[in-house]
């Protein structure tokens, strides 16, 4: 993937998260039942997005790392420093 695509996807996740955890994105998830892992659904919704953010930044990190090792092996990268979010 190109650095710009990775950055856009990562920034996109956090924008979606900002909407999903405020008005009006929260509305569909803003309910008590079903309880998930014993938590009201509204609270589970928070935990879901929190876990997702760890996964997204984890993937960005892994992608950057792979790209760096490839470059060090002498292959041509795609230019730009990229992948670090919405610069």
């Amino acid at each position, binding site marked *: 993937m190109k650095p710009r695509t990775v950055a856009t996807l990562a920034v996109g996740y*956090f924008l979606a*998260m*900002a909407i999903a*955890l*405020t*008005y*009006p994105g*929260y509305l569909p998830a*803003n*309910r*008590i*039942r079903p*309880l998930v*892992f*014993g*938590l*009201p659904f*509204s*609270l589970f919704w*928070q*935990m879901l*997005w*929190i*876990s997702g*953010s*760890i996964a997204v*930044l*984890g993937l*960005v*990190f892994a992608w*950057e*790392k792979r790209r760096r090792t490839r470059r060090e092996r002498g292959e041509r990268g795609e230019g730009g*420093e990229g992948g*670090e*979010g*919405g*610069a």
Partner: protein
Amino acid sequence: MERWVVVTLVTAGYLVISLVIGWVSGRKASDTVTGYVAGDRGFGLLVMYFVTGAMIFSAFAFLGAPGWAYSRGAAAFYIFSYGVLGFAPWYVLGPRIARVGRAYGHVTQAELFSARFQSKALSVAIAVVSIVAFLPYIALQMKGAGIVFNAVTDGHVPIWVGALAAYGVVMLYVLKSGVLGVGWTNTFQGIFMLVIAWILGLWLPYRLYGGIGPMFERIAELRPELLTVPGLGPTGEPWSWGAYSSAVLVSAVGFTMWPHLFMKAYAAKDDDTLKLTTLLYPTFLIFLLPLYFIAFAGVLFPTPPQSPDFILPHMILSTDIAPVVVGLFCAGALAASMSTGDALLHATGAVYVQDFHRKVLQPELDDHHRRLLIRIAALAAGVIAFFFAVRTEMSLVALLLAAYGAVVQLAPLAVATFFWKRATPAGALAGLVVGALVTLVLTLYPQFRPYGIHAGVVGLLVNTFTLVAVSLITRPLPDEHVSNFLDVSRRA
């Protein structure tokens, strides 16, 4: 033995361990300002993780946040959201700050901004805002430590004695070991309080309701209004979505602007350490859950606490928990307070000397004297904050909120520093000052807020507009300087 004696002994044991770790850990630091303030830029992932986590695990995590969950229900969920949203930009900002810091030898936030904008006035303005924000913040942490200690010893340990014991220890290891003392004690304190929080957070609902699920089932039956967002307002009426959403957004924007957080970016060993810290950071918000569980367990409990902030100590003392565990809880709450307070005290000393004293009073101060002065300033900050904490009835929360409003206003400046070449010193300073003033006025006079929008949001809009407008009509800095600065910030 009486319960309060056992509690005091266990807490004292925790304080001794903290002191030993804090005292010993400073041995490796070099005798320089960089060693004392930035740990010679050598923090690995473990220490960085806990130093950063301490940002949200303050006394607030054991008192204020559970108090919200208890009295206002899902309104308290906003902390989860802003914590994660607010910290994500650090993935981009953190490494840039660290690279510039390494290249120019920075150890404070204002040094970064004033290097980019070549402005002494900016440095002084940021120093003043930081210190005005730090002092009430430290005082609140001290007060929190004293209050918990007092509550769990049934009033046998006065608030001032508890605060003095906890912060006497903090002062000793901050003065001796600087940021290394902060880092390693935070690691110990962090692990300690997480273990305590989870054990109690899972055990109490189990003991009272038979588990987390059954507890929420019961609350859903009797107080369903507490379990859906936006929860309740300060006086128990339903809270508005507008207030909830803007609280999330403003807190998120300001979260990474805390000067002491910038200083920790300089302490990181390398870019990868900072990035991993950022991506692991949200785990700390998940770790807040058990404290919320204890608070929710209190909702249907027959006796209420004297005030919502006391819900945790109240629950711990009202159930048949062994005195040793009560002591461990007290130590955990103290750990939360101390792991935030120590970084703030240390930062106050460094900011005063690097960004104010050296810029205005004694420009030629050598490294040795700066280190000495930083220690004196940190000690002075501790004494002033202690006085605030135990002697005044002044509303510290109001002072902190006002100052935090100003800290949030650093956000447009931080973005312009790294991403907008055309930003000028006059624009940077004007944006900051105007934004902070607008926020302050609207905080004091809420009736002037357009459509009831959060004061900080209005401040940010005016701030950004001023920064851009003034930058465009003033002369830009030499292109060579700005290009150099930006190159350094991007070079991995």
